[in-house]
């Protein structure tokens, strides 16, 4: 694997006797867009802080481009971070913020000016050089934080829920921009989010994290259609969990059809969410199943008893680890 840029080897970390990371390992290839997906407290932020050097692992190794950087100070690592709260220096203007890393690396004034201009163009903030951070909107601060990190051309860019504070419309827009920036620069991105939609939309690979372990690593497709565990099935696109003959299966709700197969179910409730109608049934054995259909309404009423079913190729056997 010549093009592996970053390796995590069995990293463990505890805070006050609570184990946050329980031995995680991962190989990341050059130019990948990797997303760490998980709910808060799952250890995703700790993982990137260890990569950045802001936290030291109790055991395990971080290897960047073949070099062991486990014990290297953060300022000696060719890795940059976009912080969750942006952390723009309040005493510096946009230009000084973005140029800071280059200034430390002793670039000449002209070079810094040129690079900063280019970075600002990339994040579409031309002309904002002299603004102070407190004169910027949330979205603009976000762009400055990204520019400040990418201007250093790090081999790996870490992004800690960078879009968390933005509203939905801005979020969508920034997602597309981040994808574009990543393609333009070819830098490896390690992206943290708790939003499964964002993870599936942006990444080349998704790492689903739960309680300090990597539950599943795969392309968005694999994660979505072939969840390995009930946790992944639930967390990513809330699949149906169906138990039969001591086996557990995950079935995406869009594969559940009405008036199909020979399972009988009572309609419990109907709801309409974002262009999809969802119907929840209780089957005869007491398990509940949800089906989703495009369109505003479906032709059933609550308490109707109908047949529901799915094709066997759409049921995925999963490991139970979360009820």
């Amino acid at each position: 694997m010549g093009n592996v840029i970053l390796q995590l080897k069995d990293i463990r970390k505890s805070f006050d006797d609570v184990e946050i990371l329980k031995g995680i390992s991962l190989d990341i290839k050059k130019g990948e867009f990797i997303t760490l997906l998980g709910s808060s407290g799952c250890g995703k932020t700790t993982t990137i802080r260890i990569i950045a050097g802001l936290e030291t692992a109790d055991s395990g190794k971080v290897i960047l481009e073949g070099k062991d950087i486990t014990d290297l100070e953060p300022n000696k690592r060719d890795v940059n971070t976009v912080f969750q709260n942006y952390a723009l220096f309040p005493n510096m203007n946009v230009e000084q913020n973005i140029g800071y890393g280059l200034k430390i690396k002793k670039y000449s004034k002209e070079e810094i000016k040129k690079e900063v201009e280019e970075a600002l163009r990339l994040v579409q903030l031309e002309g904002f050089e002299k603004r102070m951070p407190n004169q910027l909107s949330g979205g603009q601060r976000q762009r400055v934080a990204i520019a400040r990190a990418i201007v250093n051309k790090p081999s790996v860019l870490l992004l800690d829920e960078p879009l968390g504070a933005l509203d939905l419309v801005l979020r969508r827009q920034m997602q597309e921009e981040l994808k574009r920036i990543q393609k333009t620069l070819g830098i490896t991105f390690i992206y943290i989010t708790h939003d499964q939609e964002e993870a599936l939309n942006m990444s080349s690979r998704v790492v689903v994290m739960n309680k300090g372990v990597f539950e599943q690593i795969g392309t968005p497709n694999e994660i979505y259609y072939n969840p390995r565990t009930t946790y992944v099935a639930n967390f990513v696109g809330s699949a149906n969990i169906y138990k039969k003959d001591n086996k557990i299966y995950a079935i995406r709700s869009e594969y559940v059809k009405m008036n199909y197969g020979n399972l009988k179910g009572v309609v419990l409730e109907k709801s309409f969410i974002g262009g999809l109608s969802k119907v929840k049934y209780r089957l005869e054995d007491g398990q509940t199943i949800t089906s989703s259909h495009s369109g505003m309404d479906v032709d059933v009423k609550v308490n109707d008893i109908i047949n529901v079913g799915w094709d066997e190729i759409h049921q995925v056997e999963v490991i139970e680890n979360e009820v």
Partner: protein
Amino acid sequence: MKKLSRGPIIFLIILTLLNYLPIILTVVYSFNASKITSVWGGLSLTWYRQLLNDNDLKKSLINSLIVAFFTCNFAVIIGTSAAIAMRNTKLWIDNVISYFSTLPIMIPEIILGMLFMAIFSFINLPFGFVTLIIAHTSFCIPYVFLLVRARLVGMDPSYEEAAKDLGASTFQTFRDIIFPYILPGILSGVLLSFAMSFDDVVISIFTTGPTVNTLAIKIYTKMKTGVTPEINALATIILIITMISVILYELVNRKNITKI
């Protein structure tokens, strides 16, 4: 909820007036031609003229400025370095030291005065500038220490992390990020220390030498013997200086608040 009714407004006005009454009277009487304070003898600048010719007073003013200058420098160096060093400390010894270093503003001044007078005569340190500066520094350190520490506590740790992340060394992080951030605290500390040292009477009485008089001591001894109208004029001048400093300080502070 936000609007005050008439009662509280009148209360605030009356108290503010009472607060300024002694000051206003001092200013008014500084222009009183009569030597007896209780008699109004018409407008005059006699006392200001007398002030200008009082070489003793001038000398004590210079002494006060010298002491205040050194005091606020030492206090800023000691207080700031302490606040930075003891940030996030878990060492018990740091807690002991920071407790004792802030003690001077917690205990009655008279104890400090007594303490310094006793120890300086014990070690045979000649009373004068050195003893005054050492003693004044003691009650200025806590202000600087607490002000700078408050800034540091309020500082988001991610600023430092971001600087490190962008390649800055510990020293560079301090110079470029931490220092500019705590600077308003340091400046407030300088101003406060200067004012405190300049004003101090109690501790100065115990630590000054026979040849060094500060302005505050000079005023104190004059006042004890009864008011000389000269003091009204002097007070007026000091008042104007203070007023300008406070307004400047507020302006500096407000600018910094909007900046962060």
